[in-house]
């Protein structure tokens, strides 16, 4: 079975700026892959190419077995994308936003209502379902944005900075939910600049200057660093180790 996301030699430039400079990436089924790195290292550009929103300059992108963006239509509906901006309609209610995005993904009204009740309960937004999104706090909008992405139960979740602005308790619950989704066979590709999140992924790719500098399971990367430095390095120490090794 093909990997849900495969990239080979992918390059993308914006004028003179090379945002992605030759990325090879393979995300296996049921994996939680974390693209980790500071802002401006090409994480969002990479994700937008996977969703077919940007065309690569060179290389190959395959999502769920289809070349992207050439066969983007075959993948839509099986993919859930959560952009960095919350991407919600501020002048619609919580429930209306879910209804709209659910219907766009081909769900029936009854199915949406059932699923929305379930997901709003999980996101602790059930009591706000009639409220206008414009009146919600940043964290609540973030939760709703994820709810809209999860609504149609996509096989592949592509999440750009999904845990920004979440309180610690909800952050913990989000990660538990990600692992629950993983256990059900969903694949998650997410970006983050929180290094503590890297340790919760099944595979991590550290990005720098448009390239994946190093990748592997968190425990494996920690072991490699421990061989050199000794002790039990944190993910922050692991990141700094590889960043320094590359001459930063």
């Amino acid at each position: 079975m093909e990997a849900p996301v495969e990239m080979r030699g992918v390059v993308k430039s914006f004028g003179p700026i090379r945002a992605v400079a030759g990325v090879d990436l393979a995300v296996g089924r049921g994996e939680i892959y974390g693209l980790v790195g500071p802002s401006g290292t090409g994480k969002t550009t990479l994700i937008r190419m996977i969703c077919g929103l940007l065309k690569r300059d060179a290389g190959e992108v395959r999502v769920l077995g289809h070349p992207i963006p050439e066969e983007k239509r075959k993948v839509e509906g099986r993919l859930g994308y959560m952009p960095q901006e919350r991407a919600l309609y501020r002048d619609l209610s919580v429930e209306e936003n879910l209804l709209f995005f659910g219907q766009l993904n081909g769900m029936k009204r009854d199915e949406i209502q059932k699923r929305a009740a379930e997901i709003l309960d999980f996101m602790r937004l059930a009591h706000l379902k009639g409220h206008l999104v414009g009146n919600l706090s940043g964290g609540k909008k973030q939760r709703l944005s994820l709810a809209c992405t999860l609504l149609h139960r996509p096989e592949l979740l592509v999440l750009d900075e999904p845990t920004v602005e979440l309180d610690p308790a909800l952050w913990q619950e989000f990660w538990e939910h990600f692992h629950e989704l993983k256990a059900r066979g969903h694949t998650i590709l997410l970006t983050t600049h929180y290094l503590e999140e890297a340790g919760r992924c099944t595979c991590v790719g550290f990005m720098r200057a448009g390239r994946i500098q190093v990748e592997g399971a968190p425990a494996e990367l920690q072991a490699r660093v421990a061989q050199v430095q000794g002790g039990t390095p944190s993910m922050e120490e692991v990141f700094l180790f590889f960043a320094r090794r590359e001459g930063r």
Partner: protein
Amino acid sequence: MSAARVWVVAMRVLRQMRHDVRLIVIMLVVPSLAMILFGFSFSGDIHGVKLAVIDEDRTDLTSEIIDSLKSDPTFQVTELTRVQDPERLLLSGYQAVVRFPEKFTSLYYAHFAMGVATEAHETLHLWLDESDPQIAAALRAGIADALMDEGKGGPVKVEEHPLYGVEVRFIDSFAPAIMGYVVTFICSLLTLLSVVREKVNGTFERLWASPLRRGEFILGYVIAFGLVALVQSALILGIGKLVFHLVINGSVFWTLICVIFFAVGNVGLGTLLSALAQTESQAIFMFPVVVFPRCSFRRCCGPFKPFQRYSGPWPT
């Protein structure tokens, strides 16, 4: 108040603009375009009014008057060789028809010889469309000038046969333009701002990653704002008809249908312009592009000047 802080704020605003090249271009192009369009539309006299002349008398006197009419740039004169129904001529695109009846000349000279007014036979007949008061006034003035040029103004009576707009008031000619403006403003501006807001809020990102097609998105907007336009059009037309008793020649239903089509067209225009604007401020600056041409072209519901007053290079 600190002058330094005021200056800092002003500089910050200007710096923000400097980074938005598109906004700078729009800010420079829109006023220039507005000035050019208004300049052309408010300068110059009415010209090129289509006038049909039926000469049943065919004498030197009528030829001289017709030549005088032809030399007046107000008119685009077509001399008809055979007698035709003036009302039918007006319906076919002429804005006025002048008819010299038989014995026009002989009775004209008889007037001088006998010093007796014989009005019934020295009358020049003028059929005109009075629904546009500016063009109707230009027609009257132009014909009076042609008669006076030849020194024949005194004994000739011009008998008018208005086909449309017999009791046209100012509001009757002005209100349709205002209706057009209301529909334009609401439909184009709302669509333009709504679509641009999708870009600004990032919802476009989520939409294009879903199965939604761009054509479906645009059609959805057209339907939604088309329905809004339908309600607005009915309101505007209803108020015009019931409160201001506007004169509508023909069917009110078909007038409503025309207004709806106009509104839907404006929704399309708003969508088209939204492709050029990336931010809400760019969208607002772009809006005069929609409005200014309509101020200038009366046939596009501009209320200020008739199309025939154009001195610009565009064909009429």
